[in-house]
């Protein structure tokens, strides 16, 4: 960060840039909560971006058709939950690997996004959506960011202090032993997938609200950013470790890293390469800590 500040001659820490960083945190945070809590329980979901984009498109479509904003919002969230439930069925009832199952779902949702929109962008003119998407507290902190940070806080508390949260960690460490000791891994898995789907829907909607339109790209593939942030924040791909506090740190590192590259004029294609390298570094750290644990 200091490097960025120096190279950019201070532009990196200017309020307007920090505002940009915070703004871009919204979508990633919601996806990190969903993806991260699934990872703690030993699952993963590659369809979150697809689900979120599809749900945002449904909301835009319904708004254009004259449906009131709350009904459109509710419908989109329900669709997000349904997408998550679909994943949970594939994983729990049909015993597909989460990787394969959610990859299929990602493709299906992308198809539906184009079907709903006929491949075009749908503008959003609803004042409530536009307000949440664009307005800021004290002209600085976006409302959408407050929603995400609040979600992060609530999920952090749930994970660390409730029976549900404890179950997530126990299952991530050893689902079999947890089940024989009286937990219900299937139920937890359904809850997590549905929850991640709803949060992805919310993320998609918040982005669309900010852009005042929904397009077919939306937040497609953003689950990878969420997973990268989670891994950077200490949530292991192997399950059972990490938490929302670390995830928040991971999100900030990821966003500062990406934003900083833009500020210091790293060519866009090279930024993509650098992001990949950041993920490799995070995975290496994850691997090393897993090996240390195994050596115990």
């Amino acid at each position: 960060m200091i490097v960025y500040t120096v190279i950019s001659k201070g532009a990196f820490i200017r309020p307007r840039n920090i505002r940009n960083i915070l703004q871009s945190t919204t979508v990633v945070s919601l996806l990190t909560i969903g993806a991260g809590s699934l990872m703690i329980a030993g699952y993963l979901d590659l369809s979150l971006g697809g689900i979120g984009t599809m749900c945002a498109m449904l909301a835009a479509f319904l708004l254009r058709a004259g449906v009131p904003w709350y009904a459109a919002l509710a419908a989109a969230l329900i669709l997000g939950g349904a997408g998550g439930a679909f994943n949970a069925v594939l994983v729990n009832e049909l015993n597909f690997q989460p990787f394969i199952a959610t990859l299929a779902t990602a493709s299906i949702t992308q198809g539906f996004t184009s079907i709903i929109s006929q491949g075009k962008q749908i503008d959003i003119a609803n004042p409530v959506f536009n307000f949440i998407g664009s307005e800021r507290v004290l002209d600085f902190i976006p409302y959408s960011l407050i929603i995400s940070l609040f979600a992060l806080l609530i999920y952090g508390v749930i994970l660390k202090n409730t029976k549900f949260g404890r179950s997530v960690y126990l299952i991530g460490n050893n689902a079999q032993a947890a089940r024989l000791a009286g937990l219900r891994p299937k139920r937890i898995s359904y809850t997590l997938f549905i929850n991640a789907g709803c949060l992805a829907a919310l993320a998609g909607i918040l982005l669309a609200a900010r852009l005042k339109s929904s397009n077919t790209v939306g937040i497609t593939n953003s689950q990878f950013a969420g997973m990268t942030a989670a891994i950077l924040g200490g949530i292991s791909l192997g399950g059972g470790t990490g938490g929302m506090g670390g995830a928040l740190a991971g999100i900030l590192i990821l966003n500062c890293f990406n934003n900083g590259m833009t500020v210091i004029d790293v060519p866009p294609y090279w930024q993509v390469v650098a992001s990949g390298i950041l993920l490799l570094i995070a995975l290496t750290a994850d691997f090393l800590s897993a090996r240390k644990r195994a050596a115990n």
Partner: protein
Amino acid sequence: MEYFLEFKGIRKSFPGVQALRDISFRAEGGRVLALLGENGAGKSTLLKILAGDLSADEGEVVLGGAPLSFSSPYDAIKAGVSVIYQERQLIPAMSVMENIFAGALPRNSFGFIDKPRLKKDTQAIIEKFGLPIDPAAPAGRLSVAYQQMVEIMKAYRRGSSVIAFDEPTASLAEAEISILFKLIAELKREGKIVVYVSHRLAEIFQITDDIVVFKDGALVKTFVTDETSEPELIRAMIGRDIGDTYANLSRNTEYGETLLEVRNLVAKQVKNVSFSLRKGEIIGFAGLVGAGRTEVVRALFGADPMISGEILLEGKRVEFKSPAEAITAGLALCPEDRKEQGLVLYHSIRDNVSIPVLSKIRRFFFLDRKAESALAGGIVDKYSIKTPGIDKIVVELSGGNQQKVILGRWTSDQMTTKILILDEPTKGIDVGTKAEVYQMMCDLAKQGFGVIFISSELPEVIGVSDTIYVMRGGRVTGCVHRGDATEESILSLAMSDTVKTERGDAK
């Protein structure tokens, strides 16, 4: 020249523990040497040094006159040392012959694997040991016992001069053990140096020639097997005389009403099993590995689906669709595989004991950590679990203490357990702690629990249970009371027709 393996002044320490102190002894070719000692005595550490998994801080290992220096297990294999661990190290999807020749597959002139030769060479080894194994069968489809045989043949194929076994009989049943012993005798005849780690004294007398006893990382004494006795070895191992473990148990003698009645239970690998359990009674399930004992209790506990049959709990008909439902009704299972199924290893003692009562130790939505700590503290005291505190991660506890954590979980004040199911509770636990576990079971019976005890070790299942059900091939083949049970009678119930079944397994 006489061929031998010699350990000279081996020392090894881990942070806070002196695992091995100045260990020196010699193992001769053509003899079987036992390493004996309680858990934590240092046998496994020494074996790991021999296998190249760990390196000694001081001292050297000499084989046939030349010092060995390994920096990896691969070096050890090259030098002619094979260690056969409890965990199988075969590649399950590959065939028996590919496993045996892994790393040295014969090639034809095109550079491809020479399948006919591979098969022929494998067949020759299999015949040498007289085993009914198909060289082309995937290793993962063999029974645990035969997988172990394949590992031994792999070591033999490599031309290893030292073959070390780490508790090889831990997951084998009596009939399978005798096959293993035949293989070991064959290795001995060929002049190999065989090192044998086991807790089971009877076995050690059966197949070993020399015995080295360890205690707390030090070598206590070396014995010649023919010149020593069981009590002498036990004294050397634990520093005291445990006498007749079973005769000294303080048992429950008064049984209450019938707690559980299982009628015609059918499940995967379980055919028409019926039994009943009274309050205060310990019923044992004896049989060979794979007889269906674990499957019976898993179906009963809701862990696996039940196909048909009736379960009556205190006279009421019940059926459990998940372990959670069984636990609510008053059942508790201590699974055979403590580490994989019993405990969440990388969580603390506190987290492990509170799992079934998380709903009860809540204040509003949040977990009540004080109540949780009090629960765990109470269990640690009650069972005198050796640990610096309740936050200790269970993976760092010894096997006996891990078992106590599981027992503590099910018998705490917060639980309403009526029936305790213990599947091989003494597996991998040292002699001294075993006696403690038996007494614990008797105490639980006195408190009115009904106890179901599964064990593959005949002396303990006969010595501890009030009633013994014997299983074979998924059926109950007999029910014997303790007074009438002998090892011979139980074994004959458990084993008739087994040769046929086992050949079937190997295909």
